[in-house]
């Protein structure tokens, strides 16, 4: 159980036009599970490779348990990487795969056997020792990979999109398993994902990474609800961004003047609101604060909910409405939208 | 880095490591020419001698690597390393290459079986150790005044090589197919014209094919005397006109109408053995006996020489200027001349190559042993050959004839 500190990491791959990671700072308290979320190609995996020692940073420091990692080879860092592709060694049995790290450390075979059995119990695959990787299902393979990573009791567990190749059902199971295993072992874990829901679901802390830089870091709910910057907000799914002029607790936007729940920070340039936080009501009544008349431009059925695009003044808003609430509406119907002040988040950038 | 560097470097060093030959303290060239032979024997003891010779006959190989090597080891403690080559020209080439590369000492070749233009090339290039030959103790059994010993294809030997064997040209036929072979060149040529497709000869510069062409040349020139002595362009031109004309006219009657020729004597031998043609020939008639014994020729093979004369030569051993083990080479050259070793080599059961010694210089018992050696029925009697022997042309003549053949007949 170790604290991991990343200090202004920068890494540029040879021949690449810009750095994959730039001035990246992150503090992972010991024993926590942090998710690192960002779009594809933002440099998340590079951060993991840098921590694992599979790539060397051009600048910056990595501290694991207070130890600077510069020049320490991967096998001596105690940081185990587990990827989306389970990367089980195809020429070894499940037991040999799980026991690999221990074998490399010269651990007594009897000890290896018992630890392997324990780990397979933990990942709920008891008795599969003699199987070959090719005889496993995708979910099983991923569990074996998790067991293989955990068995060496690493200081840090680095998970690189471990769920993205799994079916939706399995994803949830595996997510729970990872969460449980992390709790049980207390291994400091960095979990990389591009799925923002996953990112906030399992984590103690969530970090958002955009274009090689750390954009936001905090408790999952904070990051989700209070993105602080336009880019983070967009990435976290706050589709509606309204530029505006701030004046005390009100802001003038293209759809009208909105009232905020709290005074905005001075650097705020826009407000954002998530589609599911906007309320839609029939008719054109515009009574109440932050309520505007609009008309429905399109309706898109999404199963659990309906996504409505509404025209409000000169702008468009995207609204997510529970399916049954949307039942009475049709394209072209006049409606009223209400933007609750507490759901409006001022952002900068 | 998947492979530790020290392993790579270690293997590289291993691969590049040169074999360091242990050598006895070498005698100077002068010492080799002047010192008592015992000194040379002492200097050679425990050493090695690399003997280069044609390696395509397992009987020769077995003789050299077997009894000869054993005798050298037993008597002098010298290890004989036989190096078989496909063509003696390769050895000449090796020595030329070494000279060109500036390898003036520690050369690969200690002793080489050689004669003719190969000898001339090395001698004129100054690439041989000279002046020791007649000083070898066993040199007293050799008649150095015999022109066929003193001149190697017209090149004076000058103590630069030591005679080993004598050879005379003979033709072979299959008595089951050809009752009575034509015994003069004129009759032979008539036979060829009368039996189209049943004769061919190996294309010069094959050693034996070239010898056959020289026989035709001497016939066309009206006898060996016309071509004797040093090379003369006018005499050559006159003879060439007739000889190449004759060979050209012969082509339609040859195997495959003379469009192509066997490239070496082995091919001609196979054509003969499989009755594709009715004659083969060789500068060393014991080959016919050996060939019957090892299944290369039919049992009914017999041999003969032209009544109007057959070429004779001597083959020698020589020591290159840069030989690494000159003393051991001299000891071996001397040993090859010993009557006992010459007798063993002349035995058809061992090899059958005719001796280079002058029997008159041996004890009567020794001489009798040579005369009493058995003869294979396929091999022409030595006295039949000796009667008809003609001296070889000089190497210049030889080269001009070969070159002319390639240009005028071969293509």
């Amino acid at each position, binding site marked *: 159980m170790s604290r991991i500190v990343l200090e202004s990491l920068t890494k540029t791959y*040879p021949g690449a036009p810009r750095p994959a990671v730039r001035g990246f700072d992150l503090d992972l308290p010991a024993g926590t599970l942090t998710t690192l979320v960002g779009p594809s190609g933002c440099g998340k995996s590079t951060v993991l490779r840098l921590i694992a020692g599979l790539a*060397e940073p051009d600048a910056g420091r990595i501290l694991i348990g207070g130890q600077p990692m510069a020049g320490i080879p991967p096998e001596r860092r105690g940081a185990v990487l587990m990827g989306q592709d389970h990367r089980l060694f195809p020429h070894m049995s499940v037991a040999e795969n799980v026991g690999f790290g221990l074998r490399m450390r010269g651990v007594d075979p009897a000890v290896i056997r018992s630890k392997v059995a324990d780990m397979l119990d933990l990942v709920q695959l008891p008795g599969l020792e003699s199987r070959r990787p090719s005889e496993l299902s995708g979910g099983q393979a991923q569990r074996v990979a998790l067991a293989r990573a955990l068995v060496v009791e690493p200081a840090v567990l680095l998970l690189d999109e471990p769920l993205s190749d799994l079916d939706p059902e399995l994803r949830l199971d595996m997510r729970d398993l990872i969460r449980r295993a992390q709790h049980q072992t207390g291994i400091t874990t960095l979990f990389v994902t591009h799925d923002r829901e996953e990112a906030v679901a399992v984590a103690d802390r969530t970090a958002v990474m955009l274009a090689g830089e750390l954009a936001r870091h905090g408790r999952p709910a904070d990051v989700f609800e209070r993105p602080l910057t336009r880019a983070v907000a967009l990435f976290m799914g706050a589709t509606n961004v309204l530029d505006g002029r701030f004046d005390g607790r009100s802001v003038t936007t293209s759809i009208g003047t909105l009232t905020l729940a709290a005074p905005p920070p001075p650097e705020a340039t826009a407000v954002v609101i998530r589609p599911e936080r906007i309320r839609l009501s029939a008719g054109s009544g515009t009574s109440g604060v932050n309520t505007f008349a609009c008309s429905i431009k399109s309706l898109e059925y999404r199963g659990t909910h309906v996504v409505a695009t509404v025209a409000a003044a000169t702008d468009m808003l995207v609204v997510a409405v529970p399916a049954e609430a949307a039942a009475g509406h049709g394209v072209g119907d006049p409606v009223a939208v209400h933007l609750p002040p507490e759901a409006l988040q001022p952002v900068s950038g | *880095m*998947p492979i530790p*560097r020290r392993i*790579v470097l270690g293997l590289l060093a291993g691969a590049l490591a040169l074999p360091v030959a242990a050598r006895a303290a070498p005698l100077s060239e002068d010492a080799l020419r002047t010192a008592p032979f015992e000194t040379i024997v002492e200097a050679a003891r425990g050493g090695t001698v690399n003997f280069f010779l044609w390696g395509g006959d397992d009987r020769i190989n077995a003789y050299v690597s077997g009894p000869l090597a054993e005798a050298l080891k037993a008597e002098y403690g010298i290890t004989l390393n036989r190096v078989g080559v496909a*063509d003696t*020209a*390769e050895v*000449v*080439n090796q020595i*030329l290459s070494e000279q*060109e*590369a*500036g390898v003036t000492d520690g050369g690969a070749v200690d002793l080489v079986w050689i004669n003719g*233009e*190969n000898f001339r*090339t090395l001698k004129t*290039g100054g690439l041989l150790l000279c002046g020791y030959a007649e000083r070898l103790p066993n040199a007293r059994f050799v008649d150095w005044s015999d022109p066929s010993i003193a001149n190697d294809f017209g090149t004076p030997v000058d103590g630069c090589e030591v005679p080993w064997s004598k050879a005379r040209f003979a033709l072979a036929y299959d008595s089951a197919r050809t009752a009575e072979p034509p015994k003069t060149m004129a009759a032979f040529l008539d036979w060829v014209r009368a039996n189209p*497709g049943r004769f061919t000869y190996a*294309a010069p510069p094959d050693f034996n094919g070239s010898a056959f062409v020289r026989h035709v040349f001497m016939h066309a020139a009206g006898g060996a005397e016309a071509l004797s002595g040093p090379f003369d362009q006018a005499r050559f031109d006159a003879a060439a006109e007739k000889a190449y004309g004759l060979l050209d006219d012969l082509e339609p009657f040859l*195997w*495959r109408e003379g*469009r*192509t*020729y*066997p*490239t070496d004597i082995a*091919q001609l031998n*196979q*054509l003969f053995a*499989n*009755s*594709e043609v009715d004659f083969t020939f060789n500068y060393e008639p014991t080959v016919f006996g050996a060939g019957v014994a090892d299944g290369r020729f039919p049992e009914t093979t017999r041999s003969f020489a032209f009544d109007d004369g057959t070429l004779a030569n001597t083959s020698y051993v020589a020591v290159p200027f840069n030989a690494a083990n000159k003393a051991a080479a001299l000891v071996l050259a001397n040993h090859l001349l010993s009557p006992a070793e010459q007798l063993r080599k002349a035995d058809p059961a061992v090899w059958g190559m005719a001796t280079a010694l002058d029997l008159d210089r041996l004890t009567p018992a020794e001489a009798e042993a040579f005369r009493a050696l058995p003869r294979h029925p396929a091999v022409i009697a030595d006295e039949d050959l000796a009667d008809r022997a003609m001296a070889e042309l000089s190497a210049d003549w030889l080269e001009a004839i070969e070159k002319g053949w390639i*240009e005028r007949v*071969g*293509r």
Partner: protein
Amino acid sequence: MPASIRLALMLLPAVVVLGGLFLGGLVLAIIRTVGIVPFAGRFDPTLEPWTRALQEPDLLLSILVTLWVAAASTLIATALGVGAALLLHRAGGGRLVTLLVQFNLTVPHVVTAVGMAWLLGQSGVLARLAHGAGAIDRPGDFPALVNDPWFVADIVAYVAKEVPFVAVVALAMLAAVGSAPAITARCLGATPLQAFRHVTWPLIRPGILAAATVVFAFVLGTYEVPAVLGPSHPKALPVLAYQMFTSNDIADRPAAIVVSLLMAAVGVVCLVAVRRLMRGISGLEVVR
């Protein structure tokens, strides 16, 4: 270790070895033909070896027959090799069949040449069978295939040797392409022949052409096969070069190098071609 140094260490041994031995040897050969032998400290610039070699009366004919043998062998070997691969691919030839096809890969050229001489010669096995069947009387009645000016036995020997090589490459290409494209073509209405002609062949062609180029260049430079099976005249280029190199006349040697350099020049033309053809096959182009 920085990645660039690691990379250099991976490449360096091969580059040094090939650069030193291959390029070094080639450069030494070239400068020697103009009279420079650095290791013997000789420096007498001259073009004599070039004029000597180019005046060699058989040179042009030798070049032509060598090209003829290489072209004919390559064409036939490639066609048969691809055919064998298709058959093996389809019939899924057992391990034994595959091993037998590959058997010739293990046979040194000199052995194949010798065997071919004994098989195809006018008194060889086939001639004897023909005699046994009453088709010929004397060896001379059997067609002259060995040592003939058309190099028939040479070509047959190369074909026998190189078919397995082409087949192995073609099998690998076929395995890489898989049967899906051809099946798709068949589903779209192509006949088996059309499917091969328009779909499978274009996909495997680069590999086949590369293999054919290697075969061509190899045949161009091989000494032992024409030495055993070629006629006394004209001589294949490698035979001519080797005979000149081992000639008793030391002045012939740089000329021999000129002849083998001419051979290499043809090889370089092949290299340019193969570089174009190699695109898309072999690991060289598959870069992460």
